[in-house]
């Protein structure tokens, strides 16, 4: 009867196939048709992919959204992961109240993204929002602006909110990485005279590499699939003036955004396939490259 054990993963496998593998293949299939969402039209081969990259305004919107995703990734890497590592390091060194801090930084994660979007929309409201009010109170009134209505600040504001939301999680991953470093290695390095920055740079960071690898890839995937917060705060148009558009929002707008009557499921599927390829290949490649640089202990 021991062979029965092989049946246990079946339910999960079936669900996974049904809801993950099958949609991926069907998306690829749909991307080959001229499909307006009502009736599947003619088979058009790779035409949708051509349209996506060569026809205005689709190509402009694609690269515009792509740049935003890259920006998302860079800011999250620097701000979110940078701060998270710093915090993790402080907690690892057991400063006073580190237990409380651990919980406090993780708190935003407990809220749903929709709630966070709503909350920050209130804070950033140009009329009565807390941020502009506070700025006025402390004499920085000329700094106040319609944060989410100004294309120069809207995207950055959303990314920073996302960082605020993500810091707790990143911190926990880094903390786990730090805590897995064997004490005796650190001790040995200290005896050899390594201190401060040198210790951090030459010992702790390399030994933390597995956690950093994981977090980098997480951040990458998260940045390229950025959708919920943008949608919750700015809707499916990537407003204002496409300044907060990301590939996932662009995809949603194209494939589902109903009411407008311009749903193009074929084109949307093509974009989904491209997005899948970007995220899949970059994640796999960076996993491979970064693994090589990890130090075994």
């Amino acid at each position, binding site marked *: 009867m021991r*062979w029965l054990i*092989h*049946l246990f993963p*079946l339910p999960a*496998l*079936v669900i996974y*196939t*049904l809801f993950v593998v*099958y949609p991926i293949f069907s998306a690829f299939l749909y991307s080959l048709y001229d499909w*307006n*969402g*009502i*009736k599947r039209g003619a088979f058009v081969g790779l035409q949708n992919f051509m349209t996506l990259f060569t026809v205005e*305004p689709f190509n402009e919107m694609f690269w515009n959204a792509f740049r935003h995703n890259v920006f998302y990734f860079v800011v999250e890497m620097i701000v979110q992961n940078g701060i998270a590592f710093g915090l993790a390091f402080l907690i690892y060194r057991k400063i006073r109240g580190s237990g409380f801090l651990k919980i406090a930084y993780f708190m935003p994660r407990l809220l749903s993204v929709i709630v966070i979007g709503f909350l920050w929309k209130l804070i*950033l*409201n*140009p*009329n009565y929002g807390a941020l502009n009010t506070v700025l006025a109170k402390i004499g920085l009134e000329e700094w106040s*602006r*319609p*944060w*989410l*209505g*100004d*294309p120069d600040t809207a995207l950055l504001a959303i990314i920073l909110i996302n960082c605020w939301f993500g810091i707790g999680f990143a911190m926990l991953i880094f903390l786990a990485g730090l805590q897995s470093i064997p004490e005796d290695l650190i001790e040995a390095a200290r005896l050899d005279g390594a201190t401060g920055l040198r210790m951090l740079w030459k010992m702790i960071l390399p030994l933390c590499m597995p956690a950093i690898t994981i977090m980098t890839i997480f951040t990458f995937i998260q940045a390229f699939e950025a959708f919920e917060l943008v949608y919750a705060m700015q*809707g499916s*148009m990537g*407003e*204002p*003036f*496409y300044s907060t558009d990301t590939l996932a929002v662009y995809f949603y707008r194209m494939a*589902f*955004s*109903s*009411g*407008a*009557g*311009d*749903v*193009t499921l074929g*084109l949307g599927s093509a974009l989904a396939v491209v997005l899948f390829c970007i995220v899949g290949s970059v994640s796999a490649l960076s996993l491979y490259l970064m693994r090589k640089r990890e130090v075994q202990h």
Partner: protein
Amino acid sequence: MKQFRFRYVASIVLAAVMVVTGCSSGGTETESGSRQGGGQQVTLSMHSWRVEDTEGYKAIIKAFEADNPHIKIDFKPFKATEYNTILNTALQSDSGPDILQLRPYAPGIALAEAGHLEPLDKVPGIFTIPKDVLAAATGKDGKVYGVPLSLNSTQFYYNKKIFEQNGLQAPKSWDELIATAKTLKEKGIVPISFGAKEGWLLSLSHGVIAPASYSGTDYLDKLLKGESDLKSAEFLQSVQRMHELIPYFPENYVGLELNDMRTLFATEKAAMFINGSFELEGIKKLNPDLPLDFFPMPTDDGKQVLTTWVDGSYAVNAKSKHKAEALKFMEFMATKKFGELFANQFKRISAVPGVSTDDPLVNKMAELSQSSATPYLMVVNFAEGKPTTKQTLENALQGMYLGKLTPEQVVEEVQKSAATWFPPFKK
């Protein structure tokens, strides 16, 4: 060996699952009481995107069921933004509702073109509804596919008290409108509650302001025949006027949404508010005591226009098992009785002519929509293209308000979009 056997079993199971899911049509089909005709009980399913109308429809459906005791109607609304996807999926798998709410103009007509809808030309009374109203649900083959429900109108709402206190009256020309706004601004009142954060409100406001620049249907005829285009002086002026209003908008208006705009107006911090008949209920809920009135847009030749369009129709699924009964309901929707029930229930302008309600503002809108209406061009005629010309205008206007585009560039963009699909411009 064990490894191999496992894979073998798994692949068979997976293949079976795929086959099963591939074949089933995922039935959301509603239970029908019994077979068609013969006075037997029949339950029709009716889908809509107006969740907020559920209560109102109860009363309307009750009135219908009283006259047609063998027909029951199951009203089932979905979230507006998900409605199209749900409906399209259901129609494609032949499990659609018997009666469905149809988006007006191009998007709804696309369903008819895909063969999902039953023509309604033979429904008694349908042609009491004016032809331009029926146009919202008329296919390119000339057949009518939906019974229009109501007209939307857009206009300038204004606060009577603020106007009176400052010795102002509803403006009769563009210059008067600007002078009115200027006076209000000097008194420290926000003249127009406006926000540029949500694109759809920009095209909506443009829909109110633009007809003043091309007063009358002559220009529209030329435009729709392709003898003029969207880069014409008339259309450019309409965009320039949108620009001219900037000093009279609230501070930080580029970051304001409908909620903010509605609140500013309802709390009497702003004197005017450009919006639709569908906002009436919302404003009144926020402030029941608001001294509210509206004025239609004054045109350059001394007339006034109210921008209107049809908001949704009801259609019959071509594959419905109870077509006869569903058509019976369509017949009911074309009657004055339905129009009155509808108008009073929802405080909206009925598509059936000559219907009045107990709300004087709605009555005034209904009257003007018969005497001096002009179509909301972007919804009625330019809601096609990928992205639609309407969306292109919205985005370009947003760009203009952010200082990134000039009015000339706005019309350039809009014309470029229309030229990709609008037949008269393609020549």
